């Protein structure tokens, strides 16, 4: 709780600083706000920021560092003799923390006085029993050195918390004082506050970028481990995917080609379904539908986007799959399997319709009415206007929508598992079961996994490849959009 109180105290001080700063600025201008460089509230905000921000940042850093410092100090206290064959230093440290926690609890509940907690000795008191009374169950009797370490753990964290409180309070007061001292009628408070807001915005974007970088780096790292165990050309050019898990023996063949083929084949069929239907629906909605029809139909189409993919998967498994098998695949002699590329592709396409239609609809609506007027005014029909003016003008956005849908298709897993199966195959027949990269990532990482074997690490290589492909798609989308922008604006 002390941390919460500290935060509240700092914020209260900052709020007081706000009022004081505002008042001080007004006074310095002889109570005429027109003489101030900035609006009075900016002076208040400036003092608020100076008070709260450095103090709270310092507190956060302190809270991050404190446990590390304490751990390293205490683990030095533990004698080397205590670390025997069947325990490690970190296990002993876990004991220490648990005992320290127990002592805290005992003191809080009044079962032990603070001095008792600091002085008890393992040889005179049954610590295990007394901690048991307050609800901390220990697995074995407390060794004297553990108890000692726990006591110094408590003492150290108490001391450090006190120091932190003092330090943070001092920072807040100093910040408040500096802020107030700067407050004068010529002080450019608005610029300072705006710089602080800018810093906040930059921080937000940096976090997003750093997270992406972190993901890429971790994938890169594991992928490197994988390629140390498995030759890269076999991975990228291998035509067979047959991992063998330890125990069943035999060497694995981890070629990505069949998986990529399955991914692209299924995505292609999905787009073949989604793009025309979605685009035509969007054109109807934005150009022909009456406001009433639009108000009903648009939300209905968007409901499709809210259905969980697992439900689409079930639809593929029990309805579309058997239907395609019985009415198309078997009569044409193309296969006996209900799970097929076609099944997954069609169902995924249905899932993607609202992505394409909703985005394209917005984009088509954004084409200015003056374009339509210009074309209609020259005696063009509505459909000529749409074909020759509106769709070309909206094309960059439509391409963006399609590529977004493609990224979704490539990353989709559930529909594929239930609709197309999990057999990696390299085949042209769309009624054959196949599978995709994402499905294999899941299956390589589920169950008993050993994060050192190539069979598991391959998942990271697969993930990275997928990432590079979707990144490529996005770059392509940006390029296309920019190319048309240059031409059209």
């Amino acid at each position, binding site marked *: 709780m002390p941390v919460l109180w500290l935060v509240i105290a700092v914020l209260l001080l900052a709020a007081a600083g706000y009022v004081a700063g505002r008042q001080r600025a007004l006074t310095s201008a002889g109570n005429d706000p027109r003489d101030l460089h900035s609006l009075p509230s900016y002076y208040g905000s400036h003092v608020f920021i100076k008070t709260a921000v450095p103090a709270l940042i310092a507190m956060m850093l302190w809270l991050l560092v404190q446990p590390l410092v304490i751990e390293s100090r205490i683990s030095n206290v533990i004698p080397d003799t205590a670390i025997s064959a069947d325990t490690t230093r970190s296990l002993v440290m876990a004991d220490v923390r648990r005992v320290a926690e127990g002592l805290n609890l005992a003191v809080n509940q009044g079962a032990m006085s603070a001095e008792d907690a600091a002085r008890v000795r393992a040889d005179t008191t049954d610590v295990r029993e007394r901690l048991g009374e307050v609800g901390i169950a220990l697995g074995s009797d407390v060794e004297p050195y553990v108890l000692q370490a726990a006591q110094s753990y408590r003492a150290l964290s108490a001391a450090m918390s006190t120091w932190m409180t003092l330090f943070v309070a001092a920072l807040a007061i100093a910040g408040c004082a500096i802020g107030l001292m700067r407050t004068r009628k010529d002080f450019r408070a608005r610029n300072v506050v705006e710089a602080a807001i800018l810093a906040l915005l930059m921080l937000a974007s940096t976090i997003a970028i750093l997270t992406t970088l972190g993901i890429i780096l971790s994938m890169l790292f594991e992928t490197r481990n994988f390629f140390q165990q498995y030759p890269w050309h076999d991975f990228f050019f291998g035509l067979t995917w047959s991992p063998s898990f330890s125990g069943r023996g035999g060497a694995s063949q981890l070629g990505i080609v069949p998986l990529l083929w399955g991914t692209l084949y299924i995505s292609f069929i999905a787009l073949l379904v989604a793009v025309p239907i979605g685009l035509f629906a969007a054109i109807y909605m934005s150009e022909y539908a009456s*406001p009433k029809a639009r108000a009903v139909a648009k939300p209905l189409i968007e409901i499709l986007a809210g259905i969980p993919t697992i439900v689409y998967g079930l639809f593929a498994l029990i309805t579309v799959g058997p239907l395609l098998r019985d009415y198309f695949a078997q009569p044409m002699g193309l296969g006996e399997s209900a799970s097929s590329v076609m099944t997954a592709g069609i169902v995924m396409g249905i899932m993607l319709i609202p992505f394409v239609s909703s985005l394209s609809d917005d984009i088509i609506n954004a084409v*200015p*009415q*003056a*374009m*339509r*007027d*210009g*074309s*209609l*005014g*020259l*005696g*063009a*029909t509505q459909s*000529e206007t749409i074909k*020759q*003016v509106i769709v*070309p*003008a909206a094309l960059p956005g439509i391409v963006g929508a399609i590529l977004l849908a493609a990224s979704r298709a490539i990353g989709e897993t559930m529909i594929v598992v239930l609709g197309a199966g999990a057999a990696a195959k390299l085949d042209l027949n769309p009624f054959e079961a196949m599978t995709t990269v994402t499905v294999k990532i899941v299956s390589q990482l589920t169950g008993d996994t050993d994060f050192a074997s190539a069979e598991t690490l391959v998942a990271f290589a697969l993930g990275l490849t997928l990432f590079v492909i979707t990144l490529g798609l996005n770059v392509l989308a940006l390029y296309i959009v920019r190319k048309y922008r240059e*031409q*059209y*604006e």
Partner: protein
Amino acid sequence: MNDMRFTERAVVEDKKIAAKGVQVYYGSNHAIKDVNVDILDKTVTAFIGPSGCGKSTFLRCINRMNDTIDIARVEGDILLDGEDIYDAKVDPVQLRAKVGMVFQKPNPFPKSIYDNVAYGPRIHGLARTKADLDEIVEKSLRRAALWDEAKDRLEQPGTGLSGGQQQRLCIARAVATSPEVLLMDEPCSALDPIATAQVEELIDELRERFSVVIVTHSMQQAARVSQRTAFFHLGELVEYGETGQIFTNPEDPRTESYITGRIG
């Protein structure tokens, strides 16, 4: 006796557009109030009047562009060559091919300059060969006084032109379709005096074959290019007649105040 009948017949024949009791409402806003006007063939008619008085609105009635505005409602009759253009039989698309329009705000398509001008001819199949089309495009651009500036950049987007060039591009685009009536809504608002003079020359030239209606805020322009002038005020047609008559000897005091600069 004979002479009288002859002049009367000539006037009836010359009438290209006849508007009778036209009312336009935007929702509950009564924007055009009972306008009666006869626009003559092979004549330039100028619409003048203060901003917001309904000049553009009335112009848009003549080729049914108000159909595209959901809240707009048009009442009364507008006859083109004696045929009611608001009749259910009339196809607004065909009407607009006959009655071309240059809008108040330039609105070039996001296409090349060439494709902008070729748009109408392509849709209506006016050119049989590529050479035909090239000729139409060149002629139209020349008439709109844009050819010299645009001839080396025909493949560049029309949206990349300056405001005044875009305005002339829109004029060229409308002329290329060879309409029977050309409605021009402030076609020179962004043009310099030289380009304005060229466009006025074009309007004069068009008069030989078409009927032209031009909205303008420039009294001099109305006096220079038009034979007939209509003065609108607050949605009403206050006065309509010979341009010379309107400018030198207006009947209505509001017209006089406007052209001498006291209202508007």
